[in-house]
């Protein structure tokens, strides 16, 4: 399975996450149990450069050789950025006659009812590159319009004339006959020199617009991703890394480079997903199963919910204004990030965001030309962040400029007197917290969950800095700040499982016969999954299958996803879930089974548990912290010097190169055996 048993060769497992500003590396050493972090400035023009250079520096810094690397798992945002910025390939689309406008119409909704100037999203394939074909299925999957040879010739000729990089194919009701649609795609492919993705073959789920998008998005980013992975693989070979490379996926798992090239669409939201998966594993290590993750980065904050040790999976997400129906770890944007602008409107009312200074020019304190103060500047004004120690001292900030900019805004909201920069900053963070709390409450209300039953797990550069304020606002009593909080997506990558999701839409009344048919479809999906896994990494022994179905009462317009793992009575499982979420069950209406889903998971190598590295909680300095309008003296600690069992009563600040953790008055932090800081309300 691997060569860990042979001593030190291949002892390192490396997770890499490419962000907009930094490329993060996490190294776990199977021999020593040590976890090391490293950051290299990203190179957006060719992200593989920072990756290769950073990897070499990191290995050198840790005294390791390329041959010590036993496994690498990598997440990339190339595909996502190409979609958001509409910089993907020139693609075409072939659709059933009568449906040329499928991307123009989409689901018919506008982004806003209140904005008379709202525009719809730019279609991924312009109408001039959509070609109709006289082919379609009926609802049972029977090919009621079979394309003639001459029709296929005509379509291929038209496509060839469009000078495309790739094309997608979607036939109405193709979800009911994915193999037949794939054959028509093949027949077209033989007539032209162009790759073609069949929507039904990639994702045979009912709903033609969403399925078309899956195929189009896949084709749209494929050439870019293919080129990137080719450069990367070649570069790794050049620097002597021969370990297998895996790519993280949006569903929280990972896949081989070969699979990622074939289905790049499965990887586009992998960054945030990896962070959440790392949080779930970390919390489980510390015996916590119900968590809300809080990832606060430069431009925004995200949250995700895990219950019973499992992260929620969404089957409808938004990608740059387009819906994506592939299963992804359910991450929700909830508000401000460190770069969100703090400003006053014409009425003198204080606002935070939605505009962000991002990394360039960044907050005023970055000294890169930013003139409007941002949330990070507020952290400085309140003493949360020591400008001299930012990035472990590698990137000192201009605190005076931050204060001056905040004072200007304070003047606009009519503040006078002492400490107006700090007071304005405290107000701005309260505004930011209120906004985040509102989004969080809404997300929980939709799921019928009470946030007070959860542990908050912050990560990202600003997560641990803001987490205690947010916990106070929402009434959460416990925060877990992991050691690697500043490079958490890379951490998640390092521990990722292999995972692939499969889907089939059945749309039938649930009875003995249809359940039996569904069982055999599940079996076929599972066999396909095992075959896939063999091709990814042979000998993965620890495998798991997750099955679920979208079900509803006949006549209902909405479906509910129900886990079928270990379930005998599917209908009862549905009734039960319906009752849990909606508060009632309908024992009269028949139950319908819509789409069935299966995930095959091959467990990744368990990472060595992180350990606390220091002893006690030595105070390296003291500095004033602004709290509720006054300055309080806080203790300052070095994260790496903290030992298991250490107690840190607030107000306190814990510094590490990637982030700063703030512990407020009346809260107390304790360091557990894994080096996590658990912050709880101090006993009265």
């Amino acid at each position, binding site marked *: 399975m691997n060569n860990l048993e042979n001593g030190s060769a291949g002892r390192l497992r490396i997770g890499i996450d490419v962000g907009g500003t930094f490329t993060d590396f996490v190294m776990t050493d199977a021999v020593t149990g040590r976890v090391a972090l490293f950051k290299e400035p990203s190179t957006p023009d060719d992200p593989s450069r920072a990756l290769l250079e950073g990897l070499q520096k990191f290995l050198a810094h840790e005294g390791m050789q390329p041959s010590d690397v036993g496994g690498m798992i990598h997440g990339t945002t190339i595909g996502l950025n190409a979609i958001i910025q509409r910089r993907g390939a020139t693609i075409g689309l072939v659709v059933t006659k009568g449906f040329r406008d499928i991307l123009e119409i989409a689901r018919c909704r506008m982004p806003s009812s209140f904005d008379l100037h709202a525009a*719809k999203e730019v279609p991924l394939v312009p109408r001039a590159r959509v070609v109709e074909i006289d082919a379609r299925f009926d609802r049972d999957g029977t090919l009621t319009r079979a394309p003639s040879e001459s029709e296929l010739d005509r379509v291929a000729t038209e496509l060839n004339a469009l000078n495309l990089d790739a094309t997608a194919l979607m036939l109405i009701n193709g979800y009911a006959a994915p193999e037949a649609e794939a054959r028509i795609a093949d027949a077209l492919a033989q007539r032209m020199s162009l790759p073609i993705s069949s929507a039904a073959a990639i994702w045979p789920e*009912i709903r033609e617009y969403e399925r078309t998008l899956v195929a189009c998005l896949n084709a749209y980013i494929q050439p870019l991703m293919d080129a990137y992975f080719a450069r990367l693989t070649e570069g790794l070979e050049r620097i002597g890394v021969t370990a297998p490379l895996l790519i993280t996926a949006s569903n929280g798992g990972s896949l081989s480079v070969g699979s990622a090239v074939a289905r790049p669409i499965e990887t586009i939201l992998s960054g945030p997903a990896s962070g959440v998966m790392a949080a779930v594993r970390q919390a489980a290590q510390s015996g916590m199963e119900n968590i809300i993750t809080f990832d606060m980065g430069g431009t925004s904050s995200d949250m995700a919910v895990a219950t019973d040790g499992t992260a929620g999976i969404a089957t409808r997400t938004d990608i740059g204004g387009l819906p994506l129906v592939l299963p992804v770890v359910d991450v929700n944007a909830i508000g401000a990030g460190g770069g969100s602008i703090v400003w006053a409107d014409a009425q003198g009312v204080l606002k935070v965001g939605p505009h962000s200074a991002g990394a360039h020019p960044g907050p005023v304190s970055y000294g890169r030309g930013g003139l409007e103060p941002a949330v990070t500047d507020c952290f400085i004004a309140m003493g949360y962040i020591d400008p001299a120690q930012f990035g472990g001292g590698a990137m000192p900030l201009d605190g005076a400029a931050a204060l001056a900019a905040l004072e200007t805004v304070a003047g606009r909201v009519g503040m006078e007197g002492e400490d107006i920069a700090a007071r304005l900053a405290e107000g701005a963070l309260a505004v930011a917290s209120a906004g985040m709390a509102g989004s969080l409450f809404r997300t929980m209300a939709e799921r019928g969950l009470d946030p007070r039953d959860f542990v908050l797990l912050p990560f990202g550069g600003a997560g641990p800095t803001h987490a205690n304020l947010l916990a106070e606002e929402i009434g959460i009593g416990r925060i877990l700040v992991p050691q690697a909080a500043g490079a958490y997506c890379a951490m998640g990558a390092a521990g990722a499982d292999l995972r692939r999701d499969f889907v089939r839409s059945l749309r039938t009344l649930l009875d003995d016969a249809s359940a039996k048919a569904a069982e055999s479809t599940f079996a076929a999906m599972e066999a396909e999954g095992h075959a896939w896994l063999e091709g990814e990494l042979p000998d993965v022994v620890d495998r798991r299958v997750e099955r679920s179905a979208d079900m509803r009462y006949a006549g209902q317009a909405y479906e509910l996803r129900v886990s079928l793992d270990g379930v005998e009575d599917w209908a009862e499982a549905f009734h039960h879930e319906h009752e849990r979420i909606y508060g009632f069950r309908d024992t009269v209406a028949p139950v319908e089974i819509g789409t069935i889903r299966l995930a095959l998971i091959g467990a990744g190598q368990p990472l060595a548990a992180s350990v606390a590295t220091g002893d006690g909680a030595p105070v390296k300095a003291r500095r004033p912290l602004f709290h509720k309008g006054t300055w309080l003296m806080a203790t300052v600690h070095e994260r790496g010097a903290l030992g298991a069992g250490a107690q840190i009563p607030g107000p306190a600040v814990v510094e590490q190169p990637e982030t700063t953790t703030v512990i407020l008055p009346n809260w107390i932090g304790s360091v557990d055996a894994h080096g996590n800081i658990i912050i709880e309300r101090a006993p009265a």
Partner: protein
Amino acid sequence: MNIDPVLLEILGNKVASVTEEMCLTLQRTGRTLYVKETADFACALAGLDGRFYAYPRSIGVSGFVGLECLPAIQSVVETQGALEPGDVILTNDPYRSTGLATHLPDLHVIEPFFHDGQIIAYGWCFVHCSDVGGRVASSISPLNTEIFQEGLRIPPVKLMRKGEMAPEVKLFLDANSRTPEANMGDIRAMLAALSTGRRRVAQLVGQHGVETLKSAPEALMSYAAGKAEAVLRTFPAGSYRFSDYLDDDAASRIPVRLAVTVEIADGKVHLDFTGSDPQVATAMNIPSCGRPHAWLTLRMLALVQTLDHSAPLNAGLLRPLSIYTPLGSLVNPEEPAATGVRHAAAIRVNDILNGAFGLALPDVLPAAASGTVIPIVMSEPKATGGRIVQVIEPLIGGTGARRGHDGVDGRDSGISNLANNPVETVEAELGVEVLHYGLRPDSGGAGQWRGGCGMELSFKVLTDGSHVLGRGMERLMFRPWGQAGGQPGQPGSLVINEGAPRERRLGKIDILEVQAGDTVTFRTPGAGGFGNPMQRAAEAVLADVQAGFVTAQAARRDYGVALSDGKIDLEATTELRQAAGSGEGTVFGPERDAWDGIFSPTAMDRLNAALLALPLSQRQARRREIFETVLAELPSSFPRNAVSQAQAETARKKLTTLLETL
């Protein structure tokens, strides 16, 4: 107590968030389609004045922020005694709630939120329930002539007394609905939402103190009012008049007129609907009760929000606005006018406000949107008996063009922002084969900026004895107008068996019986264009032709752009464009021009003033008599086809004579 600018922002966020949580609770616990799928519900927090100081932005019906709760509350206090903790008011009656409810299927509830024995706020929710009795299932038909045909009227009553449901109220409710259990499910979902609101407001009191919570409504509403006034101050002062027509009132072929004068001065705006038609004997009356009602002010709210995205969504936005609606008119009907499909008239109210504000702000407002929402419903006999009833698609059109921007093709959130149905789910449920679901080329009004395309839905019926319902069809006659010389969009249409021997071109339908093998084709209007089409960049016209939004013939005819071999023929184009005339201002299209040629705006203003002076019981009959007498002088194709000078002259004279007798 004074609320500082930091706390104001925090509170604004928090109270809005409370209303969204209430909505999510309602949606999660509600049982019916209206709640789950079309989100025809809303929740809000009202201050002691009964106005909404917190309203959800991203969920539920967006347009009701201007509703007022106080009259319903006062009515209950007067008739049933003071409100106590645990009391919840229920009403659905537009007249007895003074316009809080606007048609009977909307059930509204209000709960006083107490702190230390004092009311500090009201929670409010409404749900469009499945049925409240009346003449037809679902309680809505355009052909109802009185509110009494529309179902059970619930005057403001205490549904809950000290936390217990009043049994006699429940008995009345259950006895008067075809779907009592579903209704009770929706009511319970609203009670759950109110309970979320009550709990969260109590939490806010705990966090910020009761004095802050009591001061929040006024602070938040004056903040919004300040924003609205700041926006309005940028508008050029003046008086702007605009009128438009609904094709008809659903029961006769006489068009229905809506007119408004918008007066703008010094950060204030006054809407005067004088000149609008008397209330109609069908169900499209808007029961505003003379107030600046939500249905009459939505466009103005959207305009403020468009120009200042940071404006909080609350009733303060309407403070700079005053209104006059003639009593007994379509926009302020007297009891017992039916109101079930008031949204049909509201679409046209949006259009006239859009037109009038467009005269003041020609660079901001677009030309007319397609102005129609048609839920195309199929009712199909089941092999096992009974019928399957299902929406095929809610068909809409596009949005109007404005300076610098083409309209949006095939989408329009003006009245509702409903999602469509995937064709595959439709085919999985119903025996139809959808042949074409797409945009309608050449339907968008030509202009320097093109109006959005309308849509086309064509399907083949697979079951004998199926019924197709197409309520809400509009602008089959009067086109969505163009602006600043832009052309109007194409009108809508309905064709059965197009291109086949049994082809039939139909107008509006209520219920149409079709058989297996029939094809049904709906086309929605295109939206209006903006600016002279001869000034549209020839490359933009070519791109539209290549994409198929415009045909090569229309490029030549409407834009003066000649194409040959897929390229612009520069010489021919220059020639065509030089020969073309140029329009200006609002372009209504030939049907409206023909109509106005007989029934001029001045004459219509006079007619409506005179009709309103008559007793309510006589208005409809006199109005019908006048129109029928004049129309009798004209060919039946009027106003679709132009009439001769002589015919027009005769008809005009007739009208003048009739006006004089009034």
